[in-house]
C-alpha cells in the first residue's frame, strides 16, 4: 500500500513536469498551429543552465529564475527561426523546429558538456501517511499549480492573453482588428520556452538531465498535449498526470525500461481514437 502511494507521488511529480512541457506545446500550437519539436530542448536548456549557474555560485531561486528566462529567450529565437518570416508554411516551420531541436545537441554539448547533470533541489522528506515524500515532489506540484493558475489568469483576464486566444480562435479576424499575428506567435514561442525551462528546472533535481533528454520529455509532453487536441492546457494537465502516474506504476511493478513505451502507446491510441472522431491536429479551429 505504501509502495503504491510512493509510486503515485513520484508519478505526480514527473507528471507535473510533463504538464509544463505539454502546455508549452499547447501555448505555441494554439497561436501558430506549429507543433514545436524543439519543446523538449527548452527543458534541457532550463535544467542544464540552472546547474551551470548554481555551480558558479549563484543562489537558488535566482539561478532557477535566470535559467527559465534564458529558456524563454531561446524560445523566442526558435520562434524567430520558425515563424519570423511572414507566410512561412506551417509544415516548413515544423521542420525548422525539428532541425533546431537536433542542432541544439551540438550547442548544448559545447556549453554544458556531454554528461548528465543534476543538482540538489529542496532537501529532506516529509512522512505523510507512512510514506516518505521528498520535499522536492511537493515543490514541483506547488510550482506547477501556481504556473497553471498564472496561465489561466493570463489567458482569461489580460488583454494580451485574450489577443493570443483571438489569434487561435480566428487568425484572419485577429489580423483585421490590427493584431500582428506573427508577433503574437513569437510571444507564444517565448512563453513555450519559459514553460519548458520551468519543467527542466523542476525536473533536474529529480532525475539527471543530459543534452539528449529532450526526446523523452517531448514525447511525454506531446502525448499529454494530444489529450486536449493540443489546444486545451487544462486537459493537457490531466493527461500529463495520468501519464506520469501510469509510467511510475509500470516502472515500479514491471520494468523501468517499459516506462517510455507507455507514453508512446498512449499517444498512438489517443491519436487514433481522436482521429476517428475529429482530426487530432485540426487544420483550423473555426
Amino acid at each position, binding site marked *: 500500500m505504501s509502495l503504491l502511494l510512493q509510486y503515485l507521488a513520484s508519478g505526480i511529480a514527473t507528471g507535473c513536469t510533463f504538464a509544463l512541457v505539454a502546455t508549452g506545446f499547447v501555448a505555441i500550437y494554439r497561436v501558430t498551429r506549429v507543433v514545436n519539436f524543439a519543446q523538449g530542448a527548452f527543458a534541457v536548456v532550463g535544467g542544464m543552465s540552472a546547474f551551470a549557474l548554481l555551480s558558479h555560485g549563484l543562489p537558488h531561486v535566482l539561478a532557477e529564475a535566470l535559467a527559465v528566462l534564458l529558456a524563454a529567450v531561446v524560445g523566442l529565437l526558435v520562434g524567430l527561426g520558425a515563424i519570423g518570416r511572414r507566410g512561412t508554411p506551417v509544415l516548413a516551420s515544423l521542420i525548422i523546429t525539428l532541425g533546431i531541436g537536433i542542432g541544439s545537441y551540438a550547442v548544448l554539448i559545447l556549453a554544458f558538456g556531454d554528461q548528465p547533470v543534476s543538482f540538489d533541489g529542496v532537501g529532506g522528506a516529509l512522512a505523510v501517511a507512512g510514506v516518505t515524500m521528498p520535499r522536492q515532489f511537493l515543490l514541483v506540484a506547488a510550482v506547477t499549480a501556481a504556473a497553471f493558475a498564472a496561465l489561466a489568469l493570463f489567458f482569461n483576464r489580460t488583454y494580451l492573453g485574450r489577443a493570443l486566444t483571438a489569434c487561435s*480562435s480566428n487568425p484572419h479576424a485577429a489580423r483585421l482588428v490590427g493584431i500582428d499575428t506573427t508577433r503574437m506567435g513569437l510571444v507564444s514561442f517565448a512563453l513555450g520556452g519559459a514553460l519548458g525551462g520551468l519543467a527542466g528546472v523542476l525536473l533536474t533535481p529529480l532525475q539527471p538531465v543530459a543534452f539528449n533528454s529532450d526526446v523523452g520529455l517531448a514525447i511525454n509532453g506531446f502525448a499529454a498535449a494530444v489529450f486536449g487536441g493540443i489546444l486545451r492546457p487544462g486537459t493537457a494537465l490531466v493527461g500529463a498526470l495520468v501519464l506520469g502516474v501510469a509510467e511510475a506504476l509500470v516502472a515500479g511493478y514491471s520494468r523501468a525500461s517499459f516506462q517510455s513505451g507507455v507514453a508512446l502507446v498512449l499517444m498512438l491510441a489517443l491519436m487514433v481514437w481522436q482521429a476517428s472522431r475529429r482530426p487530432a491536429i485540426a487544420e483550423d479551429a473555426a
Partner: protein
Amino acid sequence: MTPLLSVRDLVVRYGQATALDGVSLELGAGEMVALVGPNGAGKTTLLNTISGLLRPAGGECAVAGRVAQVPEGRQLFADMSVEDNLRLGAWTVRDRSPARVYELFPPLAAMRRRQAGTLSGGEQQMVAVGRALMARPDLLAVDELSLGLAPRVVDDLAEHLGRLNRDTGMAVLLVEQNARLALDLCPRAYVLESGRIAASGPSAELGQSAAIRAAYLGGAMDELQ
C-alpha cells in the same frame, strides 16, 4: 481638400492571378459610398487592400485616417464572449471600453457574456459592426452586410449605419451583392467588374442605367414580367 480614401490605378495580384487591374476610387470624409459588382469582381480584395491586409502590386491606396472592416461572414472570435470580441476591436486604440457600442446597440449589452458563436446571424453581424466601431474608424468598410440575413434584420442594420454616418460623420464604404439595398442607402456608387471599375456616379443615375439594372437589380426580369 484631400479625400479620406484615395485609390489610384491599383493593381493587386494573388501570385499569377490579377484580382484588381487599375482600380481608381475616391471617398471623402463623411461620405457613404456603395461598391457593387458580381461574385469574384475583386470587391473583397479591394477592401482588404484598403484595410492594409494586402499589398498592392502597383498603383497606390492612401487612407487619411483609421479604417475598420466588417468582414464578409462576420469572422467573429466564435469561442469568445461578445464583450471580448468588442474589446479586441480596440486593439489599435487606447480606449477599450465597449460602453459606446452598447449605447448604439443596446441588445449587445444584454448578451455581453454570451459566446459570440452561439448568437443568431443578425446578432453576430451586430457584434461584427460593433467590433469594427471599437477602433473609432474614420472609414468603416463593410463587406456584404446583408449576406444570409433576414430582410428585417438587414433593414435595421442599414438604418444603424445610415444614422452613424449622419451623426458621427464616419464615412462608410459598403460592399454589397444586394445592389438595390446599397444604391438605396448610399448616394454614390462604383460598379466593379473583373477587377476594373465598370461604372461610377450618383446611385440614382446608376440605378436607372439599363445595363446595371439588368446585371444587378433584376431589371431585365422585371421587364420580362
